[in-house]
């Protein structure tokens, strides 16, 4: 029984770590810009393919593959800002949220199809994997899962330090909390938006490498984690970063337990059930605050 419980916990924490990484990227963009980035899934997929190309086609070390995924993810965020977001921000602010959502749906589809054209639709094996397991008495912990959890923990610490301790991070948080006040302090909010999209893109890139290391590379790779990350964002309260991490871990553990107890097909419906219940009980999410809009 203990090893079954441990297997569920390890699977839950691994999925939770991956969801947290995807969720933080989404939540960061929503919280600071009011933008739901529907291209996040495609950016995640892009990261996985970049690492694959760097390691397999170019024959470079795995660390360079990681770095490539981070850099290309950040560059994709920058391109998204300069090509789409900056121009939409010049228009009526009240239409930004809906327009940017539609625009990023298009960008996501285009990117996914570009990947399909270049790499084909056949699943590919991500070379970032570690065989074997760490054994401690009756416990068996796969190195691959431990590596994923470790990478995600490192990324979370880096993001927390960047947001909490740096001037750039303070400007991002200030813009998220009160955009006008941040501008009055001298913060160039457009530069903050660029930084946020680059940071989110970098997180998506590394998330793509991790997700594909557990499954396989395919053009729709990012869709499932993106959908679940969105559910977790809503459960936590859109824009709430610590809440997003807590929701990601909690829901991933729930999903693992439900999959074990009721069968794999009940995992996703259980998440949907939770999100519906939360939206009825607390429409602003578990950790969100009600938004009052002056009409």
């Amino acid at each position, binding site marked *: 029984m203990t090893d079954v419980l441990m297997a569920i916990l390890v699977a839950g924490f691994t999925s939770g770590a991956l969801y947290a990484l995807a969720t933080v990227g989404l939540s960061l963009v929503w919280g600071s810009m009011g933008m739901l980035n529907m291209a996040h899934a495609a950016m995640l997929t892009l990261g996985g393919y970049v690492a694959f190309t760097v390691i397999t086609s170019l024959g470079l070390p795995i660390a360079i593959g990681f770095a490539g995924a981070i850099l290309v993810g950040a560059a994709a965020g920058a391109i998204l800002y300069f090509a789409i977001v900056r121009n939409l921000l010049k228009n009526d602010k009240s239409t930004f949220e809906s327009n940017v959502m539609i625009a990023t749906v298009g960008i996501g589809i285009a990117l996914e199809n570009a990947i399909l054209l270049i790499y084909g639709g056949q699943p590919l094996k991500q070379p970032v994997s570690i065989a074997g397991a760490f054994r401690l008495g009756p416990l068996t912990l796969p190195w691959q899962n431990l590596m994923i959890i470790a990478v995600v923990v490192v990324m979370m610490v880096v993001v927390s330090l960047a947001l909490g301790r740096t*001037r750039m991070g*303070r*400007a991002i*948080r*200030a813009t998220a*909390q*009160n955009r*006008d*006040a*941040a*501008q*009055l*302090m*001298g*913060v*160039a*909010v457009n530069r903050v938006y660029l930084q946020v999209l680059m940071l989110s893109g970098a997180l998506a890139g590394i998330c793509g490498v991790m997700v594909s290391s557990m499954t396989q590379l395919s053009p729709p790779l990012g869709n499932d984690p993106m959908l679940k990350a969105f559910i977790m964002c809503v459960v936590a309260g859109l824009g709430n970063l610590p809440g997003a991490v807590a929701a990601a871990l909690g829901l991933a553990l729930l999903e693992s337990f439900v999959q074990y107890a009721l069968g794999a097909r009940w995992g996703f419906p259980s998440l949907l059930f939770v999100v519906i219940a939360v939206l009825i009980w607390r429409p602003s999410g578990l950790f969100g605050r009600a938004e009052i809009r002056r009409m």
Partner: protein
Amino acid sequence: MTSAVAKPPVLQLDAIVSGYDGLEVLKGISLTVNAGEFVTVVGPNGHGKSTLLKTISGLVPLRGGQISIDGQRLSGKPHETAMLGVAHVPQGDMLFAQMSVLENLLMGAYLAPDKAEIKRRLDEVYTLLPKLADRRNQIASSLSGGERRMAGIGRGLMMGGRILLIDEPSLGLAPLIIDQVYGVIAELSKVGRTILLVEENPARVEDLADRLHLLDDGAIVWSGKPAELMARDELLATYLGG
């Protein structure tokens, strides 16, 4: 009250026009604030006082006329206006609610050149507003109304700007707290800070302001010394309801 004789102008407004969507709120306002001077704009609610400050700081776009700081024309972008030394303490404080008092103050010094300068400004603010030092680790949303106002002023001071724009500092506060807030503003004026303050009640600034402008329906209808306005019962009755 400070003497402004032969002091150079810090802020100059030349026939500025601004508003929201189809509504024109400011209809050609011109005024000057000289170095070290305390100038107040008074007027009833909804006649453009806050819009005036927001237009100067760039939050509301300028539609006509021009605004200069130290002779340099403003671009209309709020962050560039802040770089030129305009420190706006907005109505309702607009603090960063989920940040601590200290983080709010540090955001005020966002453009400060180095850590030594930030520390100097922080020491200055804590000396003037010692309660902020006691509350430095408290989350801004948990502060009382008076403390929030002090934090807003402190954050404005941390900007180390050429001019402080203060929007209705007495709004929503108990009389005792209003006295404390104006006590701090009086201290700032004494040490030579250049201040443009908007207020509904002219009695609040009677002993503080060097000059006063009366704003009505987006236009300046009278200018002079505060004591002169307080002696004009017909003006007070017509524009400020007595």
